[in-house]
């Protein structure tokens, strides 16, 4: 059996490990246009922050490809798929035959059209190791940095470079930071914390025009000057390889719960796909590393003939800034229970006897117990909800259940 994987990140690694659970011998080939050993994409901000280095941020050990019998084409781009002859064509003309193909091409930064952007020389996006290295070269302790986008990626970038530049201004069209994962109150707490580091926020505003290489005017008429510009307003899934050959694509590549696309023998996983968010009954792109890994693993096991389904997808985020931690999961449409306590904030959202979402800020201890209630669609009437509201704890479950989880009873 010949397995070919396009991509070399979480989705791809999950696939290799999934295949090898079932098939120890099949030939595996990885193609990636990034020239590196598989690395952890989220760690690029930690690299600039000084919390990791290029060796430690490798997502798997140096021996990973050898241990798993993987042949790699790194620094090579897949330009098309020939589905009739089951071949992947690379930018240098190489053709690679597959029996089963995984597309784990991830996403790319979205840079909206902005008037005068071409005048700006020092502009960066923040997605890849090369982006991080380029940004690192451009900044110094006298830099004024303008970051457009107060979402997860923009703010992680801010944390990464904060101690290495003079000033950072973050601008977002939204009225609050991290709008995709935080409510108004939570967002304010986190913003205040980041502001303590001297970061300035301009919210509810956007760039109207770049008037020179170092200046911009906002819609609300503010004049901004900067040395370095980072654009982090969002990402777009890399769906083209599948779309071009008639594969079904919605917001992202459409797959079933075994990660098959609409084209025979072609699978997809990770940020390039859409999945069913079980807390909102909606197809969404859940661009998160754990999801990418688990989809990849499911795809790999399925490709190798095993059985596995990926049907418990939920949005979930763990993110922190300067030692202040946030964990969120699910969706926030339902009845709310809110508790504020100094720097800590908790919101639990329930609907139809289920926990469907939560926000924890500050004290995030044992949050996974909440996540599990959401993922497993646990009826709240079957546990002691008052105890769970107080804090995540196994005490809220029945003795019998604990006898299974902790006591080893079958």
């Amino acid at each position, binding site marked *: 059996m010949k397995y070919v994987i396009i991509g070399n990140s979480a989705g791809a690694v*999950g696939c290799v490990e999934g295949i090898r659970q079932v098939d120890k011998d099949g030939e595996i080939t990885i193609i990636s246009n990034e020239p590196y050993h598989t690395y*952890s994409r*989220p*760690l690029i901000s*930690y690299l600039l922050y000084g*919390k*990791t280095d290029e060796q*430690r*941020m*490798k*997502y*798997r*050990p140096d021996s990973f490809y050898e241990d798993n019998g993987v042949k790699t084409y790194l620094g090579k781009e897949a330009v098309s798929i020939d589905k009739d002859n089951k071949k992947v064509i690379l930018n240098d003309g190489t053709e690679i035959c597959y029996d089963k193909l995984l597309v784990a091409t991830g996403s790319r930064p979205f840079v909206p059209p902005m008037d005068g952007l071409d005048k700006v020389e020092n502009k960066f996006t923040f997605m890849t190791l090369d982006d991080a290295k380029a940004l690192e070269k451009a900044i110094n302790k006298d830099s004024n940095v303008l970051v457009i986008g107060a979402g997860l990626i923009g703010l992680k970038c801010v944390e990464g470079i904060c101690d290495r530049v003079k000033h950072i201004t973050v601008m977002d069209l939204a009225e609050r930071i991290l709008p995709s994962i935080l409510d108004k109150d939570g967002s304010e707490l986190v913003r205040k914390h980041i502001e303590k580091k001297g970061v300035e926020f301009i919210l509810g505003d956007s760039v109207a025009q770049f008037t020179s290489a170092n200046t911009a005017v906002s819609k609300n008429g503010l004049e901004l000057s900067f040395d370095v510009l980072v654009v982090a307003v969002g990402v777009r899934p890399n769906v083209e390889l599948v779309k071009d050959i008639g594969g079904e694509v919605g917001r992202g590549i459409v797959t079933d719960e075994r990660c098959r696309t609409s084209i025979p023998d072609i699978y997809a996983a990770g940020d390039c796909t859409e999945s069913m968010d079980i807390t909102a009954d909606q197809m969404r792109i859940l661009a998160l*590393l*754990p999801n990418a*890994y*688990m989809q990849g*693993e499911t795809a790999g096991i399925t490709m190798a003939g095993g059985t596995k389904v990926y049907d418990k997808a939920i949005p*979930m*985020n*763990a*993110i*922190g800034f300067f*030692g202040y*931690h946030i*964990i969120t*999961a699910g969706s926030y449409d339902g009845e709310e229970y809110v508790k504020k306590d100094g720097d800590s904030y908790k919101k639990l959202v329930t609907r139809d006897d289920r926990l469907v979402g939560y926000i924890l800020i500050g004290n*995030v*201890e*044992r*949050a*996974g*117990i909440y*996540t*599990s209630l959401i993922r497993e669609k646990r009826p709240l009437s079957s546990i002691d909800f008052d*105890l769970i509201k107080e804090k*995540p*704890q*196994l*005490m809220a479950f029945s*003795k019998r259940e*604990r*006898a299974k*989880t*902790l*006591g*080893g009873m079958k």
Partner: protein
Amino acid sequence: MKRIYVNEKWCLGCHLCEYYCAFANSGKDDMVKALKNITINPRIRIEEHNNISFAVSCRHCEEPLCVKSCISGALSVNDGIISINQDKCVGCFTCVLACPYGCVMPNDDGVMQKCELCTKNAGGQPYCVQGCPNKAIVFEER
């Protein structure tokens, strides 16, 4: 594989397992010196409510969500034991978000720690088991 199992009927709520865990992972060879004047941060934790108490530590899951979720590759499976490479961990808390039993927590330096069945310290056998005076924690193949 041998795992740690607890029997809550036998748990006295004495917290000795927590102290034994903290000692085993302190790198010191004298329990009194290791634990004197410090707030312990053990990898096994007692939950208590009314008259019920029990110890919770990593289940070494067959489907370890922590490992699958770890963004850095710091968590891995080695012969069934779920272990952490603290040198790689960046303290992002994604594993805390993922573990269904609440068994990973930060150490005093902000990177994660978890029960590794005393495979990396001088304990040899899980120390909490040795320390439990009432055999409420056992280390067995089941």
